[in-house]
């Protein structure tokens, strides 16, 4: 239709005037007088281009040319010439895989962007749970400082084929002479790898495989073997437990791989279904902090308390000793008996006899919580075997040692002797990801692939088989263990083929490999309940009592939440993760009770810049001396000290990461309880880096509401969750109902809320690291954390109770003025502990928004308080006006700055950055964005697929990382979203609702089961 229309530009054109035609053929209406200018040679010569003009032209052109030659910085971005099939730029790929580094085992999902893994999240469909270390492991992949890059012999690089043939020759020589060789690995829990190893041993019968856990659970393994016949660990179904009694077992920490998920599943106050948890321990652990009742107890007293508990439960009278807490033990026994098969006792004592007694109590209770149908494979180490290997190395009887991802020269108490003995070995090979102390001491050093570059399978618990698949090409010239061993055994199949074949014959048996790889897990039913043999408890108890010699001071070594056994000590995210209890980052320290600190003269003064200092102590145990700073720890049992393993690594680490002291030399006989400790104060002041210095809530209990299970079930809501009230027209009304401002219109679109259940939150810190990873949160280092400049968008506040909890109580005691304040500000000697994750509350009436002069922070239509970094001029007024103090300022440039030599100052380390989130520059404010890049991606995906966003489809990094389900994110405008109901829950409250900020983060009252009966 349109084509038939004709347009003309003028009447002349319409009438067809000849002028138009002539003109249309001529580009220039008038003649260009070229001849006039160039034709006359004389005028041309006479024309005045003077020397000055010439120079001007030259000058200008030179300047212009050189300016044009200046280039901007070259950005190394290489576009795909041919698009790979499985990569769409800007779209993340997720792979199900499994982490198993000998200490942490987890079914995970890995997010990759343009071929780079950038985030680790729990594979919840495979019942996966991640702790802080698993979350942070993706950064260890890019650790160009510590990772081995080339095969080496005595420090010089060689090729893999050279290494293979030279090591092969030596192995064959040793085989001929039947000289013993040990393959020392951590717990592998990998069916196919075990087969590979057995084939290797078949090829070299002189090789023995010894499993070495840096932090041992041998006691539990041996006790279980003695009673049930297989050397493994049981699983504990804490979700069905009614009464849990733990004697020194930090099961919310690293004890037997951690049990926080099932523990929290059994603590749902709504249904009144909440276990009662009693913890006997000496250090203040995460588990003790979460317990309903925590009893501080010296390590050796824990042993006696365990026996007394056995006596009290069974009515027997085996040998024991009195402890100061026998009343509490009896009470615990009564509750256990009442709970019957729903009761359970766990102990962290690494002693066969102690573990036997715990198993015996569970047997006496006929505990169903102790599940022998599913066994737990995360620890397999055998202390006796390891001790034999050490002895053989020292005596020179061992001819060859091949280590795989263990670092005995750091983790063994006898590391020095072993190091000296290594020279006597004919063959020493380190198969290692890291260039650690052991790797540097061995002759051959072969770089291993990180688990994110590897194939593999893991059976974390019996009946479940998880797959590990590579998410990136190996960054360095590395191989994986299985490939190396296959090659040495003369098998030329690559391990991935081997694995596939192994799975199809031994595991899948007809099921789909692709499906298993997609899911990351394959489960089989195995339900043979193991029956317990009768073991003489009296015998075990008397052995225990004889072996235990209490002393005035005892040491309880433990693993910290951040570093665990210390494998990832070069990971800045973990170093910067504050300990959930002490809130100190970048350090380990001797924890000490108030009473002992007073007696020995230790203190932790707060300096004028807000930082905490400490005194040094010299700790001697069985002739080993170390000097470490002292942190006074409320709840620490008198006469006991705590000290975290995993710190003090030096070999290969960046200077900034060489923090703390190595406690492994004190870990003799793999016993984390050491008696006969002496301590003395030595000179010097240690500078701690704590992210929180005020320890109590100072009477402001409406910030973190707590209630007992009884209250929640039986009492009216206003008794235990009363909203803040205000006076309006002389009537008491709910403070939140009074407002000066017009409300945002929330009817249309999404309205995001985050619910945080303080009952379910154990304080583990996985969300903190997840937030680091997802949002490119910078690491600032010890000095900056110390002076209160950590950049965490999400932090977990920890509050201890005080002896005097409120002003009213203090007044009743006759306190006033400064004494009153001191009373509510000072933590109790054995306090209860509460955790509160705190991030931007995304207030609907945000105080930060009104004060920014340039409107850099403003309110989103979806409830988020948004921060426009590039508009921010950095007045910091918003941070000052934020009652939650969650805004973080970029005091310096944290990327590409040698002063902050962490992952953002390193080409490899930068590969972990999330391309969806900008890296902030100096001088701007930043804070939690409620992962707006994730919510927008969800919306766009739904839009592209032409559907509505599904219920509970929205997520943030923290809510995804949370294993216990304490954090629930979603859209309250969608009534099907869980968060919509949680917002209206009777336990729901807002922090500081009295000031009318109307946050979009809602907390659920913390509930403890304080029922003593």
């Amino acid at each position, binding site marked *: 239709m349109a084509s038939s229309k004709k347009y003309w530009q003028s009447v002349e054109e319409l009438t067809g005037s000849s002028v138009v035609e002539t003109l249309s053929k001529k580009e220039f209406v008038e003649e260009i007088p070229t001849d006039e200018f160039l034709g006359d040679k004389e005028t041309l010569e006479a024309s005045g281009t003077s020397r000055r003009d010439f120079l001007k032209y030259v000058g200008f052109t030179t300047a212009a040319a050189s300016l044009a030659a200046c280039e901007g910085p070259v950005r190394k971005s290489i576009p795909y010439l041919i698009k790979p099939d499985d990569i769409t730029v800007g779209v993340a790929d997720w792979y199900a895989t499994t982490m198993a580094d000998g200490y942490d085992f987890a079914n995970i999902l890995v997010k990759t962007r343009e071929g780079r893994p950038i985030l680790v999240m729990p594979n919840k469909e495979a019942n996966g749970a991640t702790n802080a270390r698993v979350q942070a492991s993706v950064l260890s992949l890019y650790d160009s400082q510590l990772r081995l890059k080339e095969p080496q012999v005595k420090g010089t690089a060689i090729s893999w084929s050279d290494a293979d043939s030279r090591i092969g020759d030596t192995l064959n020589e040793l085989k001929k002479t039947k000289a013993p060789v040990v393959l020392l690995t951590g717990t592998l829990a990998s069916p196919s790898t075990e087969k590979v190893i057995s084939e290797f041993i078949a090829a070299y019968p002189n090789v023995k495989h010894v499993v070495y856990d840096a932090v041992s659970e041998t006691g539990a393994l041996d006790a279980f073997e003695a009673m049930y016949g297989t050397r493994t660990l049981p699983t504990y179904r804490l979700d069905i437990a009614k009464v849990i009694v733990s004697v020194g077992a930090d099961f919310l920490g690293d004890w037997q791989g951690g049990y926080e998920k099932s523990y929290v599943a059994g603590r749902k106050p709504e249904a009144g279904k909440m276990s009662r948890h009693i913890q006997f321990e000496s250090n203040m652990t995460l588990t003790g902090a979460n317990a309903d009742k925590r009893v501080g107890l010296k390590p050796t007293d824990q042993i006696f308390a365990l026996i007394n508990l056995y006596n009290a439960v069974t009515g027997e009278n085996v040998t024991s000793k009195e402890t100061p807490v026998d009343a509490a033990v009896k009470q615990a026994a009564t509750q256990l008996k009442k709970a019957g098969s729903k009761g359970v006792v766990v102990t962290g004592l690494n002693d066969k006899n102690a573990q036997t007694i715990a198993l015996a109590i569970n047997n006496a209770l006929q505990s169903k919580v102790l599940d022998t149908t599913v066994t737990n494979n995360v620890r397999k180490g055998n202390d006796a075997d390891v001790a034999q290997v050490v002895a053989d190395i020292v005596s020179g009887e061992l001819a060859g040692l091949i280590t795989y991802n263990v670092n005995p020269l750091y983790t063994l108490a006898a590391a020095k002797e072993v190091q000296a003995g290594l020279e006597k070995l004919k063959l020493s090979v380190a198969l290692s990801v890291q260039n650690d102390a052991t790797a540097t001491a061995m002759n051959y050093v072969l770089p291993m692939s990180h688990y994110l570059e590897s194939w593999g399978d893991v059976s974390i618990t019996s009946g479940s088989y998880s797959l590990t698949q590579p998410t990136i090409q190996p960054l360095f010239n590395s191989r994986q263990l299985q490939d190396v061993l296959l090659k040495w055994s003369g098998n030329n199949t690559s391990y991935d083929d081997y694995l596939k074949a192994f799975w199809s014959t031994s595991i899948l048996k007809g099921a789909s490999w692709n499906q298993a790889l997609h899911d990351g897990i394959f489960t089989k039913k195995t339900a043979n309940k193991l029956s317990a043999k009768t073991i003489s408890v009296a015998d075990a108890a008397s052995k225990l009592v004889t072996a235990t010699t209490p002393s005035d001071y005892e040491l309880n070594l433990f693993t910290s939440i951040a570093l665990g056994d210390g494998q990832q000590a070069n990971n800045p995210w973990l170093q910067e993760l504050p300990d959930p209890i002490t809130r100190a980052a970048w350090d380990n320290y001797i924890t000490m009770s108030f009473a002992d600190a007073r007696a020995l003269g230790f203190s932790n003064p*707060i*300096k*004028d*810049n*807000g930082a905490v200092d400490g005194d040094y102590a010299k700790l001697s145990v069985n002739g080993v001396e170390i000097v470490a700073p002292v942190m006074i720890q409320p709840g620490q049992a008198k006469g006991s000290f705590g000290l975290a393993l995993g710190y003090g690594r030096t070999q290969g680490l960046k200077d900034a990461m060489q923090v703390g002291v190595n406690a492994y030399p004190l870990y003799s006989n793999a016993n984390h309880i050491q008696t006969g400790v002496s301590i003395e104060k030595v000179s010097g002041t240690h500078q701690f880096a704590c992210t*929180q*210095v*005020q320890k109590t*809530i*100072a*009477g*402001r209990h409406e910030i973190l509401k707590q209630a007992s299970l009884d209250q929640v079930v039986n009492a009216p809501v206003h008794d235990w969750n009363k909203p803040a009230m205000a006076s309006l027209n002389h009537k008491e009304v709910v403070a939140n109902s009074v407002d000066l401002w017009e409300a945002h219109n929330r009817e249309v679109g999404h309205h995001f809320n985050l619910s945080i259940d303080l009952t379910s939150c154990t304080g583990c810190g996985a969300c903190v690291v997840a937030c680091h990873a997802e949002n490119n949160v910078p690491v600032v280092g010890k000095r*900056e954390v110390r*002076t*209160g*400049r*950590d950049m965490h968008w999400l932090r977990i*506040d920890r*509050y201890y109770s005080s002896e005097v909890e409120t*002003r009213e109580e203090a007044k009743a005691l006759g306190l006033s*003025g*400064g004494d*009153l*304040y*001191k009373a509510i500000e000072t933590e109790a000697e054995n306090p209860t502990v509460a955790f*509160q994750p*705190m991030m931007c509350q995304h207030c609907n009436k945000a*105080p930060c*928004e*009104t*004060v*920014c*002069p*340039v*409107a850099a922070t403003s309110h989103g239509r979806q409830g988020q308080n948004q921060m426009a970094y590039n*508009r*921010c*001029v*950095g*007045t*910091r*007024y918003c*941070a*000052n*006006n934020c*009652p*939650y*103090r969650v*805004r973080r*300022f970029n*005091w*310096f*440039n944290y990327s590409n700055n040698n002063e902050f030599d962490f992952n953002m100052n390193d080409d490899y380390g930068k590969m972990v950055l999330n391309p969806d989130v900008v890296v902030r520059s*100096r*001088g*701007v*404010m930043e804070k939690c964005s409620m992962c707006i890049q994730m919510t927008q991606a969800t919306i766009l995906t739904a839009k592209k697929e032409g559907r509505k966003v599904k219920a509970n489809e929205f997520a943030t990094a923290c809510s995804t990382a949370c294993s216990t389900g304490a954090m629930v994110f979603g859209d309250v405008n969608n009534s099907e979203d869980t968060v919509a109901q949680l917002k209206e829950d009777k336990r729901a409250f807002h922090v*500081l609702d009295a*000031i009318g*900020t109307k946050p979009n983060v809602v907390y659920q009252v913390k509930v403890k089961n304080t029922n003593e009966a």
Partner: protein
Amino acid sequence: MSSHYEAPIREPLILGEKSYHDITVDIAKPIEGKANKNWYIAFYIALAAMLWGFGCIFYTIGTGIGTWGLNKNIGWAWDITNFVWWVGIGHAGTLISAVLLLFRQKWRMAINRSAEAMTIFAVFQAGLFPIIHMGRPWNGYWVLPMPNQFGSLWVNFNSPLLWDVFAISTYLSVSLIFWWTGLLPDFAMIRDRAVKPFQKKIYSLLSFGWSGRAKDWQRFEEVSLVLAGLATPLVLSVHTIVSMDFATSINPGWHSTIFPPYFVAGAIFSGFAMVQTLLGIMRKVTNLENYITRLHIEYMNIVIILTGGIVAVAYATEFFIAWYTASPYENYTYLSVGAATGPYAWAFWSLIFFNILTPQLLWFRKIRRSFIWSFIISIFINIGMWFERFDIIAIVLSKGHLPSTWWRFEPTFVDVGIFIGTIGFFFVLFLLYARTFPVIAQAEVKTILKSSGESYKKLRDGNHE
């Protein structure tokens, strides 16, 4: 107006047997003569301090605000303390020259020029801080509501910081114009006396061609009156708005309705103290004892004790309210039991000592009329007023709503350096001013010579006999 009647019992404002010419000579002397050694010593010290401060500023801008002692919980400390302190100091000038003009206070004539110079120089210092305290000062112009190509970006009119921008810039411009207007006849006087051609040229330019005609004088008087009318509300508005930086926030201790009047009183209090400090030195150095007399000092001390009284009542009110609310969040405001017993007790008690206790000495006439005592007390008040702002900012921020965020602040050498630098900068400007500007509004002083000059008073007293 010059023949305005004045009661004989009033003390003279101009001492000595001064004639009109004597006044001219006295006031032109520092400009026409050579600077003495003391001036040079003072100038070089000030210059060194200023350069040091500039160095610290460049270091801050080049490296980041992290060079200061601030942290995640305390986002302002010395920066805004210094800002408010300098703005407060700036208040006396306008009050003296504008409000006292409207109230026909003749004694202001001897001090208004220097007071207003002080104002302008102090506002310069004050204005530095909001700029350098920004994380990205190079984008500081974004706080100006100007058409731009960044998209539909506009400033946030809800923000008190934006109000500050308007308040301070208005104040600075009005003060500057008012000051300059007053300077015109005096510059002309210097111009007419100048013998060196360069000097003559400069002062000709500065005096805007003042000819001394009756019409000039008429317009001068009118403009002065109009500007005084304009400047008077500014005396109240500037510090009101500065106080709103705190009062409109939600921090306990900041969120307080009495802040505007209390801040204005505090500003005048500190401004007069600073005038007292400066004049105490200047009258000696420039031999102007006959013009800045005991009576001037006493009058200013009376203003100080009045405004100091207002401030003390405000403190008491704040303390009472913090207690009376019985809110645990108000326990730790800068005026509370928590502050008096907490880690910042030293700052709290410094404030009480310097700002409440010391000014009480001025109730004694002897002290009030003593140059040395006034000088010492004025220094104390300057310190006290600095502590007031430091307490308001640092103590309040150190104890926020959530106890987990309680922290402390310690200045770094950069914080201190910048503060010292502004003091140096201020004195550099003031010392240069004292050598090049007529430091007393001689034209105005001459108008009261016959009514308030000692010689004329004596003459009149004699006649009465």
